């Protein structure tokens, strides 16, 4: 049911783990539904220089986390905000219909991490 690309990103997930010096961290989903994604971003001069994730979820959840973190690395914050769930799914050569929500989660995870980055920046400036 999964494409080869999905299976590759599930079996050898890129960017898995924590990022000690992350300055944007977002967590989306919930355990009741069976999917949680935690995205760590390191942003320097408005550029995402590193990204990592931790995910509790199905094969598609892991693969979309992996792909989404890959896709945003090197991008500006604005570019990353434009990452759509469809783009993530397409980069994985598609997802089964009942798994599309995982790509939505990945999109939301990136946004949540960027939100957190903005919040931290605002707080810093406020200080």
């Amino acid at each position: 049911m999964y494409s080869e690309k999905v299976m590759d990103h599930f079996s050898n997930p890129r960017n898995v783990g924590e990022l000690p010096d992350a300055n944007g961290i977002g967590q989306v989903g919930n355990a009741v539904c069976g999917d949680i994604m935690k995205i760590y971003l390191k942003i320097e001069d408005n550029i995402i220089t590193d990204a990592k994730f931790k995910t509790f979820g199905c094969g598609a959840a892991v693969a979309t986390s992996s792909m989404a973190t890959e896709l945003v690395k090197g991008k500006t914050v604005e570019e990353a905000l434009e990452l759509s769930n469809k783009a993530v799914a397409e980069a994985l050569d598609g997802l089964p219909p009942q798994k599309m929500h995982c790509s939505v989660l990945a999109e939301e995870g990136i946004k949540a991490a960027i939100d957190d980055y903005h919040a931290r920046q605002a707080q810093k400036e406020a200080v």
Partner: protein
Amino acid sequence: MSKIVYADNAATTFLSKHALEAMMPFLTDQPGNASTVYAYGRAAKRAVEDARSKVAAAIGAKPEEVYFTSGGTESDNWAIKGVVELRKNKGKHIISTEIEHHAVQHTLQYLEKQGYEVTYLKVDQYGNISLDDLRAAIRPDTILITVMTANNEIGTILPIAEIGAIAQEKGILFHTDAVQAVGHIPVNVSEMNVDLLSLSGHKFKGPKGTGALYMKKGLRLPALLQGGGQERGVRSGTENVPGIVGLGAALEEATANLGESMKRLAAMREKLVKGLTAIPYTRLTGDPVHRLPGIASFVFECVEGESMVLLLDQNGICGSSGSACSSGSLDPSHVLMAIGLPHEIAHGSLRLSLNEDNTEEDIDYLLEKIPPVIERLRAMSPLWEDKMAGIAAAAAAK
């Protein structure tokens, strides 16, 4: 090819070589129409009746009480809808449990939409019902009790004989879905006091697309499939002669050494249970004692079932999960919810189901490969991270 351990026998089995051999004549040099008078037809008819006797012998029934179907799902649908039609003037109330297979549960839900009332008996943490609950649920308009013999996800064996005795005393028809039990534990329709019993060929190394319904002598359900009048008028359709022959042969084989095979399987299962429950934050699901010999079922905290099954597959292990993701629904299996597991834990279920073909080496292989998979998934799980942090904080606070 690298090693593969098939531990999903509760889903389906490899076809038995013995059964295939018995089927081969009807897959090659015999057309196998059981309803015709010429020599080929008579041979097919004999083979079908021989299979019927074997099935009957395996469940303690008379051959004329056994009707062949296309599988467990059809048998369940036929039994339940048949009783409802037969007893429609007597009442509209049915009693079942919260942990039935979908073939029963969805049929009951369908009937609820038609105006029937169903009481789903609650189960305890082991998946067992209370006989007092059952007695209390019985009403004057109760027309059917349907309770599975053994559960497919957690392996719990239910007290069928006792339920049957109550049903009999109250004059209520009693059906049991014995799809997971037949060929795996002793099943005897008269000791179990059942009026109707469903079984499915491919759960005991018989062919897929074959099953049977036991109907107690004197009971004659209306047909679910009308047509040419095969199976004494109550199950029409050209007989699946090779399938029926394979079903009979496989069931005879499965029950021939049942006692020994159960012992051997239970020992292997116990080794597996012991080994895997040694992993922290892991529990066995289902009744620890009254359970099918071959089913070892677990939940691993902070791990999601589908990714577990996928990673196990990459290690050459075939198992299954009642996780929501693998079924495309959002809720984890109704069985795991019914035994009281919280959602987030129910998502991390794994069922390993063994049969006679599994070996000691298989168990060793499972015990070698599964713990690192759990570890790997936990290492990438934010839930696990939180759990460990919480424990560390609690310890520090002391």
